[in-house]
């Protein structure tokens, strides 16, 4: 057993810390909302800065412009950026898409998309959910029909994060009717701005825009923008889910730790009834209890990281980590609001807002986390059925 990071990983951590100190994240203009996952807001300028350092492509093969650094460098980068509150919102999604393109993408995708990802320019929206297809993804109705060397897509996608400011959509669509319900799906990489694509913002409960709905009205794309084998898209999606869940939540523990540090400062410096809030035994206990849970979350992700690195089989490990990350974030949001009392509901930027009004923002955004990327209920069923071998519900 070994719970430390290697000297190389530590040296990289120092490098990232120096970068963050020299490039304070708050200086970068923001393009899209911080949805509270821990990866901050969407900032093209900040992503470009990471790209310029070669960090986005650092784990890729040399042949695709990478440096073939070990996967754990990505963990270190995420931890340090999240601890600093940096705006790297879409990075996990870019990495996941790039890895898929490297593994089974066409020449066109490799040539046209990968260099733009590496520079921090290309980001992706996921066109999975539809108005009638949420947890039951297979009931989606978007279809693509083959016409010579092109696919013509027709359908309606919704809850696509940052779709209006990303460069490409990953559109999950039916390409054929098969006897088995899970066959006949494919993934197409569709550049934003392709004729026939209409993107409408959805204002969220924070008042900002994070999600979009996308109408695809005979959108025509070249056949070699298909990512993965035709008709096997659902299997590919399932295969990628374990690592998607992992990378989409890895930064949660360091981000929650950052919020906890802010709440500890707040408790130390806020005088209530003549004594610091930190002296209130209930407050002490709740903050300390939260610290133990964040430590538990971190260790869960570190274990999952080792499994992913070693290519070990994963049945439930990333699902359990995602559920815990999302529920713990909600719990911390609740705790923060309790500690702030009447200041809690003040918005970011309001006169008198404490901790920059971030707690109220986290409180709201965390509500979506147990729904996005697989609801906590669906994932608990996954843990029970795939992880523990309990019988699957035949209706599912």
């Amino acid at each position, binding site marked *: *057993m*070994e*719970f*430390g*990071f290697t000297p190389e990983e530590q040296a990289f951590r120092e490098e990232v810390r120096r970068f963050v100190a020299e490039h304070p994240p708050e200086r970068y203009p923001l393009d899209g909302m911080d949805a509270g996952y821990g990866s901050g807001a969407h900032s093209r300028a900040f992503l470009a800065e990471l790209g310029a350092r070669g960090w986005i492509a650092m784990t890729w093969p040399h042949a695709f412009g990478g440096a073939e650094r070990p996967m*754990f460098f990505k963990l270190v980068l995420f931890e340090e950026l999240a601890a600093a509150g940096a705006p790297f919102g879409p990075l996990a999604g870019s990495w996941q898409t790039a890895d898929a393109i490297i593994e089974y993408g066409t020449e066109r995708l490799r040539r046209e998309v990968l260099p733009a990802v590496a520079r921090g320019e290309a980001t992706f929206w996921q066109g999975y959910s539809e108005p009638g297809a949420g947890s039951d993804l297979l009931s989606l109705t978007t279809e693509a029909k083959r016409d010579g060397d092109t696919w013509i897509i027709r359908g309606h996608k919704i809850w696509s994060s940052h779709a209006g400011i990303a460069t490409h959509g990953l559109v999950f669509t039916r390409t054929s009717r098969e006897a088995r319900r899970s066959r006949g799906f494919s993934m197409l990489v569709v550049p934003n701005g392709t004729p026939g694509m209409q993107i409408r913002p959805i204002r969220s409960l924070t008042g900002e825009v994070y999600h979009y709905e996308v109408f695809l009205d005979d959108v025509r794309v070249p056949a070699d923008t298909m990512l993965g084998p035709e008709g096997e898209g659902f299997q590919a999606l399932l295969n990628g889910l374990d690592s998607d869940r992992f990378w989409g939540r890895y930064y949660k523990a360091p981000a929650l730790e950052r919020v*906890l*540090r802010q709440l*500890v*400062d707040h*408790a*130390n410096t806020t005088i209530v009834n003549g004594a*610091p809030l*930190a*002296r209130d035994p209930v407050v*002490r*206990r709740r*903050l*300390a*209890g939260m*610290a*133990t*849970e964040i*430590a*538990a*979350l971190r*260790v*869960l992700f*570190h*274990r999952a*990281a*080792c499994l992913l690195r070693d290519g070990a089989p994963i049945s*439930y*490990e990333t699902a*359990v980590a995602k*559920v*815990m990350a999302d529920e713990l974030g909600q719990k911390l949001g609740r705790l923060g609001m309790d500690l702030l009392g009447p200041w809690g509901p003040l918005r970011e930027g309001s006169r008198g807002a404490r901790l920059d009004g971030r707690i109220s923002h986290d409180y709201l955004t965390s509500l979506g986390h147990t729904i996005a990327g697989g609801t906590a*209920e669906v*994932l*608990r*069923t996954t*843990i*029970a*059925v795939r*992880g*523990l*071998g*309990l*019988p*699957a*519900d035949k209706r599912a």
Partner: protein
Amino acid sequence: MDFALSPSQQLLVATARDFLRKHCSPETAQRLALDERGFDDALWRRMAELGWPGLLVPGDLGGSDGSLLDVVLLVEEMGRAGLPGPFVTSAVVATALLLAAGGAEQQRRLLPALATGERIATLALVEAGGSFEPHAVTLGCEVPGRLTGTKLFVKDAHVATDLIVAVRDGDLLWLPVDRSGIVRLPLDTLSGEKLFEVTFDAVDVGAEDRLSRNEDALGAALAAGALARTAEMVGAAQRVLDLAVEHAKTRVQGGRPIGGYQAIQHACADLVRDVDTSRGLLYLAAWKVSEGQPAAGDVATAKAYAGEACLTVARRGHQIFGAIGYCEEHPLHLLHKRIQAASVDFGDAGQHLETVARSIGLR
């Protein structure tokens, strides 16, 4: 970073699991819990033959130079089996104390006998206030002089050969249990663990009975005890999870196994989280201690978190099992009671969360 056990650790765990399956079945554990003495001399001798009591003892004193991480892995298996007895108090806590605070002569005289299991030592720390914190000790004793007072919750004092008595100002006294004036009064516990109130009535204490004064020694031994008890909880909680999943697969109601119902599935999913996280924090803390890194916050985190999480596993386990879990012949209740007892031993959540509170910078 690597969560895998070393080959020798794998061997230790496999041997322990196999041995305990054979020699400490649920029926044996239950029989020992109900038995007044509750100590199986033959089982203790067999464990000694495997070298377990000497795991922490240096090789030149008859032990096997193991680390606290090794101990934690072994005790996790003991927790899984519901093994009762003085292993933690003697082979972990007393041994750690003797290693940290014993003089060279005391170590040469006592450690080899602890390693072979011939001597069993137990710690007498807690007083009427119920605290496991060293600074809460009020019992005083001039050395040389006479010791008069009471200690509570002394584990397995009836089979121990020696008591380590914590007295005021950081002194530790090593006293044979048969010294005149020492009386051991059994407490009746839920878990079947044998706990005693020990009274000292003008007991003679000489300079040779005192361990060297070492402020950190008691703290380190209590940390080892806290982690060993955490390991016990993790092992027992894992066993509850395994049993619950097995039950959910085989118990049929409404025409299908109850594990096919989401209410049961989701409960089981939460048990997995609680067990995996508790184990992760346990290994992390034990690894840090074994590496000589500062670990007070990690130990407190593991003990506080696992105490809550593992007890939750046991309690939800009862709901999954339904009526059968209410029966004495079923293994669940004993595992539950052991987890509950371990959660308050060597510091409850309140004590450890206060350590965590300070470690995260709360003033």
